């Protein structure tokens, strides 16, 4: 259970930036994964050479923000008005470029990213149940980000302006909103969240080329299940996916073992594990075609 929730919060952290840029701003930015990767690489590099985790985190934020700034000014800005397909294609192009660029800079081999020395030892969350302390940090950050995003999007004027700009840019401008500037800001915030997620996730996963695409699909799945544009939906969906995925791996084989011969179990169980997340999404969409919490009527 706890593991499922933990994984869910990790997923939310990954999906958070995407929720902003894709969910709220309605820009399908596949390159989000590349920004995530960038964050992880820079953080790992700086952490290793400076010995300070915080320095790595800050450097990741700074570098990714710079890259995002350039990206926004050169490309993404011109994509706001385009359809999703164009956005998918252009940002897919950016992925291809980013992956090769990272490979040129750091080589194809994964990079070392270690957790901060203070957080190496596991903590006993419950008597007899140690939990990795670094993971706790990630969970905490995930919760904070969720809360922050929810407030920003739903309870601030900025959130309203972004949503207005996303659904009807021209009308928002007629109401005096500097849509371009607001969007740039939100894109940068999304990039910062990607960098944060990358820097934080690095120490528990492999920092390597292609890590961005790996998380992109689960993150999109989370968004879609939750209902695009709904922070609450994304949060609940992340937990749901985390739980279902974990159960699919841990409990389904046990359950199956009770009813099927072992040979069949070893064939079927892994299939279920692989399918779980997608089956969940297909089921949700079959009954609620706009996700659990459709934000746009």
């Amino acid at each position, binding site marked *: 259970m706890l593991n499922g929730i933990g994984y869910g919060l990790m997923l939310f952290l990954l999906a958070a930036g995407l929720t902003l840029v894709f969910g709220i701003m309605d820009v399908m930015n596949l390159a989000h994964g590349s920004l995530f990767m960038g964050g992880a690489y820079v953080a790992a590099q700086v952490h290793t050479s400076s010995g300070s985790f915080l320095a790595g985190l800050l450097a990741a934020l700074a570098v990714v923000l710079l890259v995002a700034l350039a990206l926004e000014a050169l490309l993404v800005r011109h994509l706001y008005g385009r359809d999703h397909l164009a956005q998918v294609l252009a940002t897919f192009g950016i992925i291809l470029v980013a992956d090769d660029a990272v490979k040129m800079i750091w080589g194809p081999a994964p990079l070392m990213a270690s957790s901060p020395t203070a957080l190496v030892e596991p903590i006993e969350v419950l008597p007899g149940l140690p939990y990795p302390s670094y993971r706790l940090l990630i969970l905490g950050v995930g919760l904070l980000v969720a809360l922050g995003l929810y407030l920003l999007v739903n309870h601030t004027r900025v959130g*309203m*302006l972004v949503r207005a700009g996303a*659904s009807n840019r021209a009308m928002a401008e*007629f109401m005096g909103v500097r849509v371009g500037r607001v969007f740039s800001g939100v894109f940068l915030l999304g990039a910062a969240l990607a960098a944060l997620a990358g820097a934080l996730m690095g120490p528990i996963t492999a920092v390597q080329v292609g890590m961005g695409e790996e998380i992109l699909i689960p993150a999109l799945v989370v968004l879609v299940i939750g209902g695009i544009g709904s922070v609450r939906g994304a949060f609940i969906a992340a937990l749901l996916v985390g739980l279902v995925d974990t159960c699919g791996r841990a409990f389904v084989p046990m359950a199956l073992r009770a009813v099927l011969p072992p040979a069949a179990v070893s064939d079927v169980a892994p299939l279920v594990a692989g399918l779980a997340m997608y089956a969940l999404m297909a089921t949700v969409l079959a009954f609620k075609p706009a996700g659990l919490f459709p934000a746009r009527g």
Partner: protein
Amino acid sequence: MSLAQALLDAEGIEAGYGAAVGSGEGASQVLFGIDLSIRAGEVVTLLGRNGMGKSTTIKTLIGALPLHRGRIRFGETTVAAAQAGGPRQALRPDAIARLGVAIVPEGRQCFPNLTVEEHLIAFADTRNDQREAWDLGKLYALFPRLRERKHHMGNQLSGGEQQMLAIARALSTNPRLLILDEATEGLAPVIREEIWKCLRQLKDLGQTILVVDKYIERLLDLADRHLVLERGRVVWQGDSAALRADRSVWQAYLGV
């Protein structure tokens, strides 16, 4: 109320759809040199049959369409200016809006992903500290229906409710110039009456208004001055009394 200085001043504006920017030429030029000036506190109407360029004029004024030729000034600021083949300069629509121009556009254009209340908060001018400034309470008092529907999304409203919302949204910015393009379309007669009363009040408070509507009788009571458009040109202008008197204008240009 200064009569000398016009709040909005448009000279010889030409504009249209799809034509190459700056060329002034093109397959679908719609406006052929419109002169229009509105003094502060004045209520002016644009009249004319369907498709004569009323909405196009408004879209050009708010920067939604590029100006091919002419000059538009709002207050002290030159909003747009263009000469044939010469340089063009123009403010972006949002900049124009921030000068104090608010519009109730054709087709309402409510935001589907904002609630009713958010429509009224998001763009509100909170700096304005005039006593008479529009705030949430006053807007709800004007349209009690909106209070009842305040948690509905913009697309979960009836047509008329959307129209009310569009008007309230424009008022929430406390604009210097309020532009209404067919703002009573789709409203029940009683509500229409409310709107006319409200505009009357606004006028009395000194609000400057540019209005397009098909209920000419009401406009005659309300407005100071009228411009009649025919195929992108101003073919008549004058005050209400003059328009009342000149039935030939009604027949030739207003289809009545």
